[in-house]
Every structure is written in C-alpha cells, then in structure tokens.
C-alpha cells in the first residue's frame, strides 16, 4: 500500500461515489431525521418521540424484537460455530461444495425462503401432520404467526452469516497450533475453547454483530411468519407508514431503529480484544 500523494487522486476515485451517496442516501436520511424533531409548525420538539416511546404497543414490540434477537443469536453461535470449524478443516473442493449449500438461504429470494416455512409449519404442514400422527397433539396446533415461527425463520437466514464470518476467520488458525496444544497434554475440548475460539474471536464478534443487528431489523421473516399478530419493530414501522398512514410515528420508529442498531453495532464490537 502506498501513501496517497495528491488530493486530486482521492477526489477522482472517491468523488463520484461520495456525491451519489450524499444526494441519494445521506440527504433523505437527514431529512427524515430533522422531520422527526419538528412540530407541525416547524419548531424543535421531542413530542413525537415521547408519543411513540410512551405507547404500550411500542414498548411491547420493542422488547419482543430485542428478545427474539437475544434468542436467535446464541443458538446461531452454538450450532453455527461447530459448522464453521468443520468447514475450515475441509479440503478446498469439499469446502466449496458445503459453502455453496450453506449460502443458499442467503442467495434465494427471502419471500421464497420464508414461504417454505408456511408450508412446513402450516395447519396441514409436515410438522403438524407428524405431531398428530404420533398422537402428541389431538389436532393441528397453531405454529404459524407466533414468535417461535419467526425465530425459526430468522435462524435459517442468519446461521449461514455466522458460519461464513467465523469460517473465514478460522482459516487463519493454524492446525499445527492445535496439534501442539494436544501433544502438550490438552484434551480436544480444552484445545477448542482455549486455542481455537480465542484465535477466531474477532470473526465471532463480527458474526454476532451481524446476526444480532440483522435479527433486530429483519423485515420479510416477521412479516410472513408473524403477520399482524406478532409485530416486530420493522413490521410495526411498515404498518404505521403504509397502513395507518401515521408518518410521524413511522419516522420516529425509523430513527429509533437506526440509533438502536448503531448502539448494538458499536457495543458488541467494543469487545474486540486488543493485540491478542
């Protein structure tokens, strides 16, 4: 990497992208942000925030969204981390095959992916059919439009993200280090937790950040699997904006979503170990 000598090069290379984002990305966001602090006559007010935050439904939905992210993230780590470890030990060819299988949920249309769970969890779906056939339930139970359905859908989407991030950080973990620890008398589980995990810690933190913020702001999964019964922040915002035409509330929820995402994003990444 060379030091950049002239400002002209910087402007030439970054200029077009910067101008594009300024006009078509930052300006609209700034507009919405300013709008959320303005009263009808254009004066500064926190009234809109007060109205939204003191609303009982908002509190319920906010806590629910947070709770689901808090449930999905550890499960994604517990199942995804061993998968990432497994992938990192494979030969290049097998690695490529397994990775393309695992990224499938990320690459296919979210509507198609989520719709599959309607077929599975529906009244006459495979889960209900099995449960009634085994006489666990006398008749089909409602599995769709519940928090559980959303959690399952979110896991399918975000586990691959965790696996990808962690497996790429595990590439840097040298097998010889593990074998050295083994030969020095550590057992397999000890090596895993004391050698492998610390060496891939940065990737794990990155993965957790992506999964957590992703769960917090996901739209399609809660929209299809939760419906109007189990609202999350994003489906609530959409309802306020497009169904109830309550722009003020939608704007405030939008700003609160950004703030919370940024807090989570920076909060989790603060765990990054220094010079490990």
């Amino acid at each position, binding site marked *: 990497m*060379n*030091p*950049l000598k002239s400002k002209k090069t*910087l402007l*030439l290379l*970054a200029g*077009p*992208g910067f101008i*594009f*984002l300024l006009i*078509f*990305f930052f*300006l*609209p*966001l700034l507009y*919405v942000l300013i*709008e959320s602090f303005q009263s009808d006559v254009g004066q500064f007010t926190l009234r809109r925030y007060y109205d939204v935050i003191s609303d009982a439904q908002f509190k319920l939905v906010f806590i629910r969204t947070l709770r689901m992210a808090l449930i999905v993230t550890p499960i994604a780590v517990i199942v995804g981390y061993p*998968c990432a*470890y*497994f992938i990192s*030990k494979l030969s290049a060819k097998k690695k*490529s095959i*397994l*990775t*393309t*299988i*695992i*990224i*499938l*949920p990320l*690459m*296919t*249309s*979210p*509507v*198609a*992916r989520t*719709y*599959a769970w309607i*077929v*599975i969890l*529906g009244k*006459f779906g*495979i889960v209900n*059919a099995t449960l009634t056939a085994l006489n666990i339930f006398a008749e089909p139970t409602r599995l769709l439009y519940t928090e559980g359905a959303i959690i399952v859908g979110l896991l*399918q989407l975000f*586990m691959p993200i965790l696996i990808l991030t962690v497996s790429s950080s595990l590439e840097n973990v040298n*097998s010889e280090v593990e074998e050295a620890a083994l030969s020095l008398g550590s057992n397999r589980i000890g090596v895993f937790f004391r050698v492998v995990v610390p060496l891939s810690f940065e990737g794990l933190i990155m993965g957790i950040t992506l999964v957590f913020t992703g769960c917090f*702001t996901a*739209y*399609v999964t809660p929209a299809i699997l939760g419906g109007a019964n189990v609202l999350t922040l*994003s489906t609530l*915002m*959409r309802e306020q*904006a497009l169904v109830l035409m309550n722009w003020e509330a939608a*704007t405030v929820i*939008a700003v609160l*979503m*950004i703030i919370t*995402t940024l807090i989570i994003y920076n909060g989790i990444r603060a765990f990054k170990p220094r010079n490990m």
Partner: protein
Amino acid sequence: MKKSKFLIFIVALAVIFLIGPFIIIIVSSFNETAVMKFPPKGFSLQWYQKVFSVDMFKTTFWISLKIGFFATIIALVIGIPVAYLNVRYKYRGKNIVELIFSSPAIIPGLVIGFALLRYFIYVAQVPITVGLFLGHTAILFPYTVRVVSASLRNFDLSVEEAAVSLGSSPIGAFFRVVFPNIQAGVVAAFILAFITSFNNVPISLFLTGPGVSTLPIQMLVYMEYYYDPTISALSSIIIVLTVLIVQAAEKVLGISKYM
C-alpha cells in the same frame, strides 16, 4: 485432524435445517389441491401454469430485472474506484471514508426505503422507478466495493507500478493491467449484487405505485389475498434458478470466497 461423530451430527442437522425447507417447497408446488398440504396429494402442474398467467408477475419480473441490471452497473462504476482507492493507498481519514462508504450496509434497509419515499417521491416528486433504481444502487454500492476489494487484494500491485514506470498513464495502466486481472472479481460482484437487488424487499417495499413494483413485493401482495400453491411454484422456479446461477458462478469464479 480426526473429525468427531458429534461434530458431523451437528453439521448434518444444520444442513437439513438450512436446505430442507427448499426441498419441501419444491415438492409442495406439485400439489393437486389448493390446500397447502404436506406430503402433497397427487401431481399437477397447474400452479406453474397459474404463475405464468398472472400479468403482474410478468410485469414486476421485468421491472426487477431492469432495476437489478442498471443499479448493479452504476454501483460497479462508482464502487470500483473506491475499492481501488482503499486497497491501493493509505491516507489520513481512511477509516472515516470507509465508514461513509459502508453505511448503506449498516443502516436498516427499511429505513432507507422509507427515507427515499419521504424525500424523493413526496418532496422532490421523482418517479417511483427512479427512486427504486437509486435506492437499489445505494445498497449495492458497499457490496461491490467489498467484493472488488477482495479481488484487488489478490492482485500484485507492483505489476501495475511496473507498467507506469514503463511509461503507461495511471488510467491506461488500470484498464490494461489491473482490470484484466480482477475481471473474475468484477463478474462475481455483478452476480452477487444483481441477486441482492433482485431479492430485495425492504427498499422496494416503500417504493411502489400504480403498476410499478418488484417481483418480491408482488409475491407478498399476492400472498395476502390468495392462499394456494402458486407462490410455492413461483418460489420453486426462483430457487432452482438461484441454485443453477450460484453453482455455475462457484465453478467458474469460486464465488463463495467473495461472500
């Protein structure tokens, strides 16, 4: 290192969980009845016929295709120079520049779509198709920067320096020496960005109007009114196409290493 049985068990479970639903939806799309039953009853192609008879699916498919294509091209045109800047040079304030250019990937898509609707459609009175194109370009931009950067890192930049020292202009050297070497990365970026745009819901959700929408949004609208396997059939078509594209891209370009 020997792999334990427990590890293989967990991986098998995860793979079944991740791709099982796709197999189930494909099987269910051949259902004879309109009830979404699994295992399905009989065999029928009627839901596939129905997919092609719904005009809005055709219209929105073309809109999605066009938006995806043009947004990806523009995102590449403005993204490649940024990737080059970040891989090639170090300079003061680089962290801030990188943060600015990755922000469309950090801000929730739903908020971006909402802001574009408020500002461009209502205040600036821009047509919805243009709003869709701009919103998609903005979110694809960090994507193209990341994938092209990954590809540039594998290229030995001293080759470019050699070309410049032999009298080539920096721009000439880029197009004649650098670009041919990162072509695979650029194609990978194109495919990944296009798929991202084609699948996008949060941005497109707010940017719809009379006769203008994207295919995923149209599928969501259809689901609100009809409960039959038509969406299963359409989803199956999309899933199979995606699998074919990803497989081909993995074989030719090794796309998974850019993810």
